[in-house]
Structure formats: structure tokens, C-alpha cells
């Protein structure tokens, strides 16, 4: 499995993702840190930017890239002619995407702190940083919920247009649905509301939003069902190069 993970990481070498990661991190850091009253304001804004706007689009883009590249480089035949079960490559790719999402959000977190220090936001301490690291770990896990649907769309279409479209649409619709009755069940809205609830629990914000079980359940549903479907499809599908 380590060889597979190694290969998935090596495949990203010199790719576009290494431009997208710092760019997304800098944009979200500047947008959230700009005019922030305090550290809570800056770091929570940044997390919300990720959960509702940047996260779905970036996670879907990374997923599309990692899966579709095998079809675009016409390497899918080679990949599945290795003496390993297909699901191992699927898991390897999921782990690579997890690393990419983690790197993006971690970088964004670091840039937000740097930007905050440069703009003289007062009151940062190590205890706060540690608590926010926990908060951002939850954010990373929630962003990963978008990956299986994007993976399924990519495997089905053999390119990353559909999955990226899904990510962008999720970002756009999520913001609009927040005010609707069942909006909290939509994945990006569910992630954002859960973040606000956790921020309240950790004492980062004055919001007293209760953690919504339906929201968390919907995120689990969005992750687990497409994961099972994609995995089953990836194992059973007839392999064609997409030509």
C-alpha cells in the first residue's frame, strides 16, 4: 500500500495543484484577515470560506485531477494491469487527495496567522493556536466529504470537467441554501453550520448554535454512500482508456 501511496504522490510532481494550493491559501487568508477585528474573527472567517466556498470547489478539482489524469495520460490500462486489487489504487488516490486538502487548508491557516501578524491583530497565544488546529482538523475532515461524489463523477466521465462543475455548483448553491428550511442538509451548508456550532462550543464565537445531528448525518451520508458506489464501480468497471 505504501508503494501505491508513493506512486500517487509522485504523479502529482510538477502538476498544477502546486500552483492552486498556495493560491487558494493566500486568497482565503487575505479575504478572511482583511478588516478582521480579532483572531477569532480572522480564523473562523477563513474556515467558513473553506467550508462554503473554496473547499467544495478545490476538493472536487483535486479529486478530478487525481482520477482523470489516468485517463488523460492514458495510463489507466497500466494502472489496473498491476498485480494489485483495484480498490487499493482507489484508496491510494483518496489518501493523496486527503493530503492535498490537508496541505491547502493547513497552508491557508498558516497564511491567515502570518497575515494577521502583519496587520497587527492582537491577542494571539499558543493555547489559541492549538485549539484552532483542532478546529481546522475538523474542517479538513468535513471537506473530505465532498471527495467521493467528485470521484464517482470523474470515473464515470473520464475527465475532471464534471467533478469540477459539481464542486463549483456546490459552492454557489451552498451559500444560497443556507437560508432555506432544509438548507442545513446540503453538504457545504451542513459543514459551515457544524463549524459555527463547534466554534461556539470551543468559545471562539458568541454564537450558541447547537450541533445539528441531521447536518452531520447528511455529511456522513454524502461521504459514505458515494464512497461505496464509487469503490464498487471502480472495482467492477470495464477499463477503457477513454479514447
Amino acid at each position, binding site marked *: 500500500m505504501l508503494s501505491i501511496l508513493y506512486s500517487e504522490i509522485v504523479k502529482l510532481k*510538477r502538476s498544477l495543484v502546486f500552483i492552486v494550493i498556495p493560491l487558494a491559501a493566500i486568497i482565503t487568508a487575505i479575504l478572511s484577515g482583511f478588516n478582521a477585528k480579532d483572531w477569532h474573527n480572522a480564523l473562523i472567517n477563513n474556515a467558513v470560506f473553506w467550508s462554503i466556498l473554496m473547499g467544495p470547489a478545490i476538493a472536487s478539482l483535486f479529486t478530478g485531477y487525481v482520477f482523470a489524469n489516468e485517463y488523460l*495520460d492514458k495510463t489507466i490500462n*497500466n494502472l489496473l*494491469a498491476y498485480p494489485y486489487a483495484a480498490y487499493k489504487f482507489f484508496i491510494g488516490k483518496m489518501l493523496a487527495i486527503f493530503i492535498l486538502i490537508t496541505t491547502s487548508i493547513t497552508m491557508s491557516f498558516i497564511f491567515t496567522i502570518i497575515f494577521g501578524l502583519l496587520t497587527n491583530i492582537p491577542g494571539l497565544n499558543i493555547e489559541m493556536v492549538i485549539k484552532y488546529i483542532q478546529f481546522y482538523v475538523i474542517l479538513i475532515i468535513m471537506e473530505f466529504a465532498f471527495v467521493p461524489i467528485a470521484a464517482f463523477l470523474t470515473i464515470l466521465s473520464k475527465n475532471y470537467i464534471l467533478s469540477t462543475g459539481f464542486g463549483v455548483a456546490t459552492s454557489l448553491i451552498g451559500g444560497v441554501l443556507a437560508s432555506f428550511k432544509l438548507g442545513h442538509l446540503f453538504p457545504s451548508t451542513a459543514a459551515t453550520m457544524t463549524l459555527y456550532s463547534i466554534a461556539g462550543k470551543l468559545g471562539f464565537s458568541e454564537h450558541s448554535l447547537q450541533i445539528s445531528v441531521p447536518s452531520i448525518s447528511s455529511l456522513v451520508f454524502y461521504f459514505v454512500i458515494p464512497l461505496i458506489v464509487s469503490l464498487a464501480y471502480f472495482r467492477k468497471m*470495464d477499463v477503457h482508456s477513454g479514447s
Partner: protein
Amino acid sequence: MDYILKTYNLTKKYKDITAVENVNMTIKKGDIYGFIGKNGAGKTTLIRMITGLINPTSGNVEIFGHPVSRGNKAFLERIGTIIEFPGSYQNLTARENLEMHRRLMRVSDKKRIDEVLELVNLQHVSNKKVKGFSLGMKQRLGIARALLHKPEFLILDEPTNGLDPVGIKEIRQLIIDLAKTHGITILVSSHILSEIHQMVTRIGIINNGHLLEEVGYEAIKERNRHFIEAKVSNDKKAAYLLENHFAIENYSIIEPGIIRIYESLENSPAINKIFVKNGIDVAEIKISKDTLEDYFLKLTGGENNA
């Protein structure tokens, strides 16, 4: 006899289209098996089923004496493949592509990368990104990748695609060397018969999803034999004269007025003389070669692709 590959009534259907039907293919140890067919004849579909990339609708594949299934991919450790395209990761260098393959195939000897690069003559561009490679270079990298883990059975689907005549010759020689020096059994497919018939020991001809024929080297040679072809006014009388004057029995009347004589080639002036002397008009008499190409075209009923 040791068989590397056997297929039993292998069939693949896509809704109403039957891509491959009831194919019984056998490849013996040490064969260079030329798999010939027009574009769309079913070659790649069959190769995909052999390597477990697609599930057959019915029938079975046996490699190294074991049934192929998607749940058991251990046999792939002993196989090297290029299937349809010599796929390589474009952002990576040739060396990085091979290094990734080395790790995935658990080849401990790192020097093996240099060995295969040298074998396909890519050692000078090993640190260049594949993106900038010509199709010929990509083909050679694909072959290097297929050879890196020292496979016992090599499956090369259209390995000469995109190569110039020099490249084709190099690949042909490489395939012969691999079979002779390393004892690798090779399945090489092509839609261009002339590119591979000089190197193969057996040929399988596929058309519209059916394996029409499998022939050995002797039969290949037989079908490349020289003959005298004569256009005569009376083929029956000509046949009588051949048998009685020259004791020639190895001849055939391929169509009315055209007779092919497969022996006594040196006697063509004498044959001509006897024909004329006995009142047979000879419009043309020449020594020709029965090419495999002709045979293939006759068998597949087309002249566009071979």
C-alpha cells in the same frame, strides 16, 4: 506442451454489439505470436480480457495454467504490457515513470532502470519530461516499462504505432532479441501485417471478433512461397502438360485461365515453350511471391488495412 495462454470460447458483448466471439487462442512458451486484424477487429478487446481489464461476457482465460479473474491478479507480476497506448505520466521524466513502476512491481535492483533505458535507447533523455517525447519515444518508454520487471510473457498491443520505418525495424529486432536471448513469450498485435510477419513464429488472424486462423511458422513460410504464374488460354490442357511433360503435381488453377506452379521454378522458359508448342496461348508468365498479406486480405475480405 507448455502453454502460456489459452482462451476458451472467449466472448465479449456490448449490448447489441459482439466485439469478440468464441475465441479459442493458444500461445505456447517461446512463441512470438503475431495477432493480426483490421482496426476494430477485436484485438484490443481480447487483450483487455486476457489482462483482466474487462470482464468477458462468457468464456475463460488461462495464463500460466491458472484461470484469470479480477480477484486474482498475481499472474500480472509475470506479465509486461502495452495495451492500446504506451501510457506514461506526462509531467514526470522517463526515469521517474520507470522508478514508480519499479517500486510498484517490487523490483529491488535500481540499476534495472538504466538497463531497460539503454535497451530501448532512451538513456540520453531519461531525465526529460515525457510530455516532450515523440510518439516513437513514448512507445519505446512503454516497452522499457513493460520489460523492467523481467516478465515471462510480454503483451504488446500495436507497439509500432507512430514509429518511423527505422523505429519499426528497431522494435522488431528488439522483440526478436527478447524472445531469443531472454526466452520471453511475446504476443504482439498489429493491423499492419507487413510490420510483424518477419519476426513472428505464429500468427492469429482476427476479423469481426472471430479468430479466423492460427498458423505456425512453417505455414507462414508456406504462404510466402514463390511460384510461376501463367495466364493461359486453356488451363486444363496446361495442367495436363505440366503433369505429363514435367511431372509437376504441385500447382493450382486459381481462377479460369490462371495457373500457379509451385515447383520447378527454374523451368519457366521450358514450360512456356511447351505450352506454346501445344497450341496454348500464353498471355503472361512470371515468377511471383504469394505474400501473407494477400492471404490475410483474402481471409478477412478487405484491402484497406492490411
